[in-house]
């Protein structure tokens, strides 16, 4: 099992890193959510419904960032055939899909009081829904075979090609007339006043660390699963 020589080193790093990410992440999320719900004032025009942004924005970032990580894992798998590439791609897919779903759900809940509709087929919403379907397709794709840790070349290509949707989501509010507003935070600054912005830093950081902890936990579980599988197979062969 020479392929797991490298994962062993990975595990020695991942084991202490997981609780650290989880602990700091949860603390940042709790403080950010408390601040977002109880400390900052209601937004001038939307009132209290604007507070959902402290969940919606990190969820959107992690849904999209998750796919970028998935695409990089796919590329590493295709070019360098690193044994951990497939494992990390499998591990990223489920939390990525989860945060994309949270982004869609919170956006919909915000859309009803703000826009007056739960759902519209505008560019931003449609392309984000496509991202959720891409995640679900990837999860189905990598779970159909016998393989427990690595992913097929086709799945890796799917992950890389699917990344084309990420700049489309990002630019959808610029390229097309859309109901969704343009980005509030750009390289040119923030259109969210500092007084309302600061808890967002905590929730974005917190959810990102939580995402990292999820990925490490899932990678460890996938590696353990593959190890068990290999041992059972060897036992069966020895009879």
């Amino acid at each position, binding site marked *: 099992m020479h392929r797991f020589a490298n994962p062993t080193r990975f595990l020695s790093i991942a084991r202490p890193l997981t609780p650290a990410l989880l602990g700091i992440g949860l603390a940042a999320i709790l403080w950010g959510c408390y601040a977002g719900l109880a400390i*900052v*004032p*209601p*937004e*001038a*025009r*939307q009132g209290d419904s*604007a507070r959902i*942004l402290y969940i919606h924005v990190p969820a959107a970032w992690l849904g999209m960032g998750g796919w970028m990580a998935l695409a990089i894992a796919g*590329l590493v798998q*295709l*070019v*360098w055939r690193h044994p951990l590439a497939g494992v990390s791609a499998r591990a990223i897919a489920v939390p990525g899909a989860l945060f994309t779903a949270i982004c869609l759900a919170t956006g919909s809940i915000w859309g009803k*009081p*703000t*826009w*007056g*509709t739960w759902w*519209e*087929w*505008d*560019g931003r919403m*449609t392309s984000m829904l496509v991202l959720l379907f891409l995640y679900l397709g990837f999860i189905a794709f990598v779970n159909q075979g016998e393989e427990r840790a690595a992913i097929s070349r086709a799945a890796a290509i799917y992950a*890389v*090609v699917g990344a*084309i949707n990420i*700049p*489309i989501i990002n*630019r959808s509010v610029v*390229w*097309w*007339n*859309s*109901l969704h*507003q*343009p*980005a*509030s935070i750009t390289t040119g600054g923030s*259109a*969210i*006043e500092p*007084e*309302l*912005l600061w808890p967002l830093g905590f929730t974005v950081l917190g959810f990102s660390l939580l995402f990292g902890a999820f990925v490490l936990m899932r990678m460890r579980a996938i590696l353990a699963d593959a190890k068990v599988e290999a041992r059972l197979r060897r036992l069966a062969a020895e009879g």
Partner: protein
Amino acid sequence: MICADAIPNVKPKQQRLILAVVALIAVIGAGLLATLALRDQAAYFFTPAEAKAATITPGEEVRLGGVVERGSIERQTDGLTIAFRLTDGTAVVPVRYTGIVPDLFAEGSGAVADGRFRADGTFVADRILAKHDERYMAPQMDHIPLNAGDTVVEGDAA
């Protein structure tokens, strides 16, 4: 797929990298071309200027989006019908709507109207959505351009 020995003196790893980069560029190019081609079809609404340029026949279902012109909202005596003007800075379309508007529907703010043009150029909407912009503001008086307040006062006065 290029075999590992197709090009001498190049490692298979580098060949795969070159192949992946070329494929990636091709995919990004295809994606960009596709979205550019979708530019008109995938738009969620027409702006007033686009609607005028597109020569839409009266009665055809369209969606119109723009900014509600300041001072243009007039509430009719039935208390439910409103008339206002949607503008994109170049063209202006008069709109009529009977029903309840979202809370954020206000003069100087974005709105989207589903409906159809009448022969006289008035747009009759059967649904109004409010558009929110990217600004999030704390509720101090010196920050607010007082859009929301204006409409509430007008609504009460009518």
